[in-house]
């Protein structure tokens, strides 16, 4: 049973990490805990399900469509809401509050258009049956989620670490003023980040939406809370941290179901998060961000 549980934990952890990637990117670069990320996630899932149903598209087209569609949403939110707040030098929690408003609009807008009932992806989007290796059951989708999240993590990390643009993004994360001074097109990178982060959110929406295959307007909310835990534990905008924290949460949850009791699952998982923070008050990779007195 343990081997199956470890596989379960890995895939659940990757589910969390997948959600967290875009979330942490926007958190890191714009410094905003974007509480509409859950809604964007949902929009991505709805968009893909609708496109695929209407035009009988294959999954990869749905994923692409969701990425673009949500990305555009992210861009629009940035232009209409976040940018004016940046311009006005709004205090740092204000953008977060604005994104709550955006989430309310999106959640209820989708409900008004699609209704509140559960929606699903067209049947046969992805093979439902599990593959079996030595008594361990895994689905294609789970493998896909694990693969995609690790690949995305690798790509994002490389991009941030090794490229000039990555350095520019990290510069913005610390001080937009300093970034301006070296000639970074800060606004441009803000747009790009908002687009990519939201696109990744939409992508996660499709993959995780396929996982339960019961879409509903508020499907992003439960993910949001766990996502916040993951990105904070992982450290401000730290991609590797988000991945690790996601896995941490996945393993904590699954193992507490396996060995402590499912009704204590969230208490154990969040209790552990709490303890980790007491030991590492700046998250898993906090030491990297310590500043000089």
């Amino acid at each position, binding site marked *: *049973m343990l081997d*199956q*549980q470890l596989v*379960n*934990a890995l*895939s*659940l952890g990757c*589910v969390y990490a997948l959600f967290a990637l875009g979330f942490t990117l926007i958190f890191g670069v714009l410094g905003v805990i974007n509480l509409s990320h859950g809604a964007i996630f949902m929009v991505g899932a709805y968009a893909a399900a609708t496109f695929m149903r209407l035009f009988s598209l294959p999954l990869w087209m749905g994923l692409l469509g969701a990425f673009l569609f949500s990305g555009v949403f992210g861009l629009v939110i940035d232009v209409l809401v976040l940018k004016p707040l940046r311009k006005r030098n709004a205090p740092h929690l204000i953008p977060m509050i604005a994104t709550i408003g955006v989430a309310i609009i999106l959640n*209820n807008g989708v*409900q008004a258009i699609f*209704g*509140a*009932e*559960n929606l*699903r992806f067209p*049947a046969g989007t992805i093979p*439902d*049956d*599990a593959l*079996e290796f030595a008594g361990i*059951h895994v*689905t294609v989708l789970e493998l896909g989620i694990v693969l995609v999240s690790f690949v995305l993590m690798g790509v994002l990390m490389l991009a941030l670490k090794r490229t000039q643009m990555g350095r520019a993004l990290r510069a913005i994360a610390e001080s937009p003023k300093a970034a301006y001074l070296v000639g970074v097109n800060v606004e441009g990178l803000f747009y790009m980040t908002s687009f990519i982060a939201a696109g990744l959110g939409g992508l996660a929406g499709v993959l*995780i939406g396929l*996982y*339960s*295959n*019961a879409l*509903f*307007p*508020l*499907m992003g*909310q*439960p*993910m949001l809370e766990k996502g916040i835990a993951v990105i904070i534990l992982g450290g401000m905008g730290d991609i590797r941290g988000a991945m690790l924290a996601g896995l941490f949460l996945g393993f904590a*949850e*699954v193992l507490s*179901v*396996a060995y402590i009791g*499912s*009704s204590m*699952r*969230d208490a154990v998982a969040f209790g552990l998060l709490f303890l980790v923070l007491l030991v590492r008050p700046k998250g898993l990779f906090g030491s990297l961000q310590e500043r000089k007195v």
Partner: protein
Amino acid sequence: ADIKIGVAEALSGGAAQYGTAIRNGFQLATDEINAAGGINGNKIVLVVEDEQGKKEDAINVFKKLIFQDNVLMVFGPTLSNSAQAADPIAQAAKTVAFGTSNTADGITSIGDYVFRNSVTEADVLPETLRVATKHANLKKVAVLYGNDDVFTKSGYDNFKKALEDAKMPVTTTETFAKGDVDFKAQLTKIKATNPDAIVLSALIAEGAPIMVQARQLGINVPFIGGNGMNSVKIFDLAKGASDKLYVGSPWSASNATPENTKFIKAYTAKYNGAPDQFAAQAYDGMYIAAQALKATKLTGALPADRAALRDALPNVKWTGATGAFTFTRANDKAGKPAGYDAKQQAIVSVTKGTQFEIEK
């Protein structure tokens, strides 16, 4: 004069899915009743308000309907939690509060103006279990339920009692939370205990993926579900993994009585989708109220009319989409008579292909 009836349901928020189905049920019944001449020539007018599935809003909406819109009675609210908060308002204002979806224990203990036609699962589940045990030859079962939601939790409580009464051994009891997407940890654990069936108290949004993921893990035993699983949506959401789900309820999509057939046909035509149990109970609820109204002499004096309606309601006998219906008196905490619960016969059916097949 028009007869104003308040409808307070969750049309937004997490429970909107159920609230909208319920509202549709009311609307359909009202239209039919009005088209057939109304109540002794008077039309029923619905005053619909959204209570968002939150207790504060439910209270506000009840007050608005009762004191400002001066409705004769109020249907709703959607969730049992909200009913616990809002029904006392109606009770104090001596106005009937009629729930069509509140299944938690103790709602009708609030007072003698509180009615419901939603079957408490206490009546249904033993029957479901009995039928399933017989048909699938169960020796031991595992239990899985949502422990942070009133609907699924009170369903579990009734299952637990029914299992104890039936002396059915339980291999393990596992829980999940609303909004979860991954249930494999629990299912893996259940699988290791080798049950003959899984007793599941869940709503469809979690219940469908649970069935899918169970099959993916190689668990092929039957599921025994509560009210929340009694929806044809299961065939869509759990496509390919929806077989062998036993549900018991007074209403079944496959129950071919003339009343039910008519209801399903009318609903599908009007709303472009199949009805579920929530819609059916709301539909019947409106007809039950209509029967009471027909038997009441409305004077135009609101307090008197409200009281008269209350007095007329307990005597209603009605056969609708959910079969034959009568009220039965409930007691309050002190054991004194209070509100009214439903008394109905359960139908147990099992999924096969894309159909509920009636087993009993």
